[in-house]
């Protein structure tokens, strides 16, 4: 629990941070809250030679509305999202999911950008970003690019971020129409990470039928994923119990499920369906 030696730098601007990252490449890691990175360093499972703390860069922590979009800065803490009255109105799944992350200390220091870039297979935000079909804005030496959430999570602790890039912002279309959304989670009692986490975003058409469904699942596989089987099965239904249950049975289709000390793969397979149902039910409330 004593980390190896590292340099610690606090760039004042994003460009400075990018230059440092370009210079030090693999030897450097971005510090964006540090609630996963620092423990890994204390265990010497991660030994970066330089930590680039982007916490001092102005204007990376914000929740803005721009046109039809919400824009959330990478350094926005879970607590800032949890406590945002505006988000509770516009996109309630964000504060609701934030409130389930870790504990108060984690929520006060951990950031949405840090969580997404780390891509822990049991983190909560990836499921929510998938369900909201968010765009993730990353910036590198050659400029900015947008990565769709669907393309962002590559594998365990692996994202589509290229070396030298920094996650800058998350963009989410402000939900419109007759929509409902919710995050349902079974938390591991030791870590607080999701044993299963399901984010659901649904819209209904004028007749009250399911017009679209977007379901993100985390905690059960090597990365968060969209439960497309569930989504397809829901669309066009009246979202009655039978339809939801039937759709939920597709929640783990084609997914290689993880088992661990706390929950076997079989139990997780069962839990996903339960939590898909619960997330959808909660989304309709």
């Amino acid at each position, binding site marked *: *629990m*004593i980390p*190896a*030696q590292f340099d610690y730098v606090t760039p004042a601007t994003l460009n400075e941070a990018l230059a440092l990252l370009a210079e030090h490449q693999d030897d450097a890691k971005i510090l964006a809250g540090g609630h996963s990175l620092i*423990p890994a360093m204390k*265990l*010497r499972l991660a030994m970066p030679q330089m930590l680039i703390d982007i916490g001092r860069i102005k204007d990376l922590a914000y929740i803005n509305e721009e046109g039809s979009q919400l824009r959330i800065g990478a350094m926005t803490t879970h607590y800032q999202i949890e406590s945002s009255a505006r988000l509770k109105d516009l996109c309630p799944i964000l504060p609701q999911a934030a409130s389930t992350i870790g*504990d108060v200390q984690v929520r006060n220091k951990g950031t949405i950008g840090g969580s997404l870039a780390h891509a822990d297979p049991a983190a909560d935000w990836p499921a929510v970003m998938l369900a909201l079909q968010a765009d993730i804005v990353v910036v590198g030496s050659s400029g900015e690019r947008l990565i769709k959430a669907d393309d962002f999570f590559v594998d365990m602790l692996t994202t589509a971020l290229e070396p030298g890039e920094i996650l800058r912002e998350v963009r989410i279309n402000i939900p419109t129409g007759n929509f409902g959304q919710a995050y349902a989670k*079974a938390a*591991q*009692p*030791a*870590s607080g990470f999701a044993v299963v986490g399901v984010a659901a975003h649904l819209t209904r058409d004028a007749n009250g039928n399911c017009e679209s469904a977007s379901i993100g699942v985390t905690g059960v596989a090597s990365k968060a994923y969209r439960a497309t089987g569930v989504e397809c099965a829901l669309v066009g239904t009246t979202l009655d119990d039978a339809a939801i249950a039937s759709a939920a049975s597709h929640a783990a289709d084609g997914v290689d499920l993880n088992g661990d*000390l*706390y*929950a*076997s793969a079989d*139990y997780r397979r*069962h*839990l996903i369906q*339960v939590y898909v149902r619960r997330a959808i039910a909660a989304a309709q409330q």
Partner: protein
Amino acid sequence: MAKYVGEKIKRTEDPRLIQGIGHYVDDIKLPDTLHVAFLRSMYAHAHITGIDTSEALAAPGVVAVYTGKDVADKVGAVPCAGALPDLKVPDYRVLANDHAVFVGQPLAAVVATDKYAARDAIDLIMVDYEELPAVVDVEEAAKEGSPLVYEEYGDNIAYRLTSGEGDIEAALGAADKIIKQRVVHQRLAPIAMEPRGVLARYFPGEQELTVWSSTQIPHLLRTQLAIMIGIPENKLRVITPEVGGGFGSKLNVYAEEALLGWIAMQLNKPVKWIETRRENMQATIHGRGQVGYIEIGCKNDGEITGLRYNVFADMGAYLQLLTPAIPTLTGLMLSGCYKIPAIQMNITACFTNKMATDAYRGAGRPEATYVIERAVDLVAAELGMDVVEVRRRNFPQPDEFPFATKTGLSYDSGNYQGALDKALAMADYTGLRQMQKQARDAGRIVGIGVSTYVEICALGPSQAMPAGGWESATVRIEPTGKVTVLTGISPHGQGEETSFAQIVADEFGIALEDVTVIHGDTAIVQYGIGTFGSRGIAVGGTAVFLAVEKLKEKAKQIAAHMLGADASSVTFKEGKFSKPATRAASVAGGVSDPDVPVSEAPAAALPEPNVEDKQISIQDIALAAHIARELPPGMEPGMSATHFFEPTNFTFPFGTHICVVEIDKETGDIKIVKYVAVDDCGKVINPMIVEGQIHGGIVQAIGQALYEEVVYDEQGQLITGTLMDYALPKAAMIPHLELDRTETPSPVNPMGVKGVGEAGTIGATPAVVGAVVDALSPYGVRHLDMPLRPEKIWQAVNQA
């Protein structure tokens, strides 16, 4: 008049702890301190065929590197105080020599100018391991043909012991029903908030060694370290500054403590080691670790005829201070709060390639309580009786105390019916059962668990203890009237700075603020035993009380002398000694006073110049005792008294815990919807501290029932290596606890106190498990092993 005793006085320790201005070992900074890091075995079982430290020695900042060979004939073996027939005690050295027996065992120590350099150098030490098959499962370890932890022993059996009285075969033979059940008491990690830590400094001129250690037993540690290091005990000073919890894990003598002391002497520099949480999980003792087989016989009316418990006790790879004694404590308490005509326990204690087990809050008694309470529940289930009814049927009556058990104990006092009735009323047990029926009719899974426990506290009479069970106290009144208490117990969260001060302040009739309680420094405090076994108040507090009584007697003699009165006539009230009221006062009142002693009458007939002269405060007496001009002839000056209290028996607190759970049928999640506890720990000094102890104990019991488990894999790798995997209960996971008490004083000490430090941990676990099993009884479940993870519950529901 008690002013403080019995009151919810806020703990005087807390302001400094809450503000973070207390001093733990790591807060003590000495100039030129070197830091120690340990290389620990990666393998559960291996021959060490070579250790190359040359690269580490050459690393920047490294001052010294020691291996097992360097210290083999310098530092003695880690001590075990267990005294059992035919006990095998492995020669466990502070650094492994050529045989590593568990993951986390120290192999080498690096000393460097800072902790980072020390840690860096650990990675530069090259160890050649020759892996050996690991012994992990305790029942497998007992089998013939199992791999051996120690080849030279020929088997893995540390000891076997049969205990108990009564004809067990006859008792079980006379039963209408015999119920058998295997139960697992999983390994737990104590997880004190402050891990262990040692700072050692040698004064070469004075040839004195000072060791600061986060321990529960400074004096016992001093004795043992003196033997291990080979320094005269009176040249060794052990100081325990603030200690951030122990739960039994610091009731021990650890390899690191001795090694740090020895290194400080080699290098003539202060050396420090603060345990990391990873080390704490690996190499601080674990608790529990028993797998047992219950056999209980009963009559059809619920009367218990006999109990047999065959248990495999997991010692781990070697014996720490009390490792082998813990299962024997289980044997002592197997009768629970019931009249059982015959009890037999057969212990098979085994070595395994894991960290040693030892005392963890409750230390053998939670296991006993769990066994007997689960057994009684099984009887109820078998007979279709209510769990309360079976318990009530087997209780001894209040007038049967002292009550002798077939485990060889004499329970001091008890009223088990009283605590049970109070808890049933608080919980509205009848209403709960109705609610349960309605809930079940509605398809919900609801259960009610009841635990009626008794435990053994105030450890203990020296005859029954491995190394003395008495406790010491010195009470001094300083010339200014302030009172200093030196206690041999070494509190580390139990709040005795407050509760002892309450006792002393009341007895002297002085203000609480005028009492300071000092502990945890062997150079200041007379020899003591320490804090464990819920002995703080009942043994240590009694020693304080009796030292105060000695001092009061001395003060009274001085008062009588100063007041010119006979000591037998002097009274003491609210801090003042008084001469009896005088005739003059009575005459002035115009009424004849029949209470005036005849001998006083002539003198009292004279007018008194000043009525106040007839009173003298304890503070004035203390000053007089130090000035020593006005003392009775032959009296020693000074105002100090010491008492070494030897208890005549243990104390036996008891109570009833009721837990109500609701289970999520789909996920197996358990929610505790109600928790009621009525505890009886005898007389209470500070109800707030008692409640705090009950709260903490119940939380740790819930932890065992639902969440916690130290898990080693088949190769002996500890796979619950951090708090990301080892699930401690957190505040948000704990329900509101409804607490109350009954008060049955103990006859074995003058204050009637019993002890409460471990009660919650002992009483609560069976209530929680009982509630879950009760909830699942419609699914054919009679028992489930802890921890009751949701998956286990889900399986139970779905396999039905």
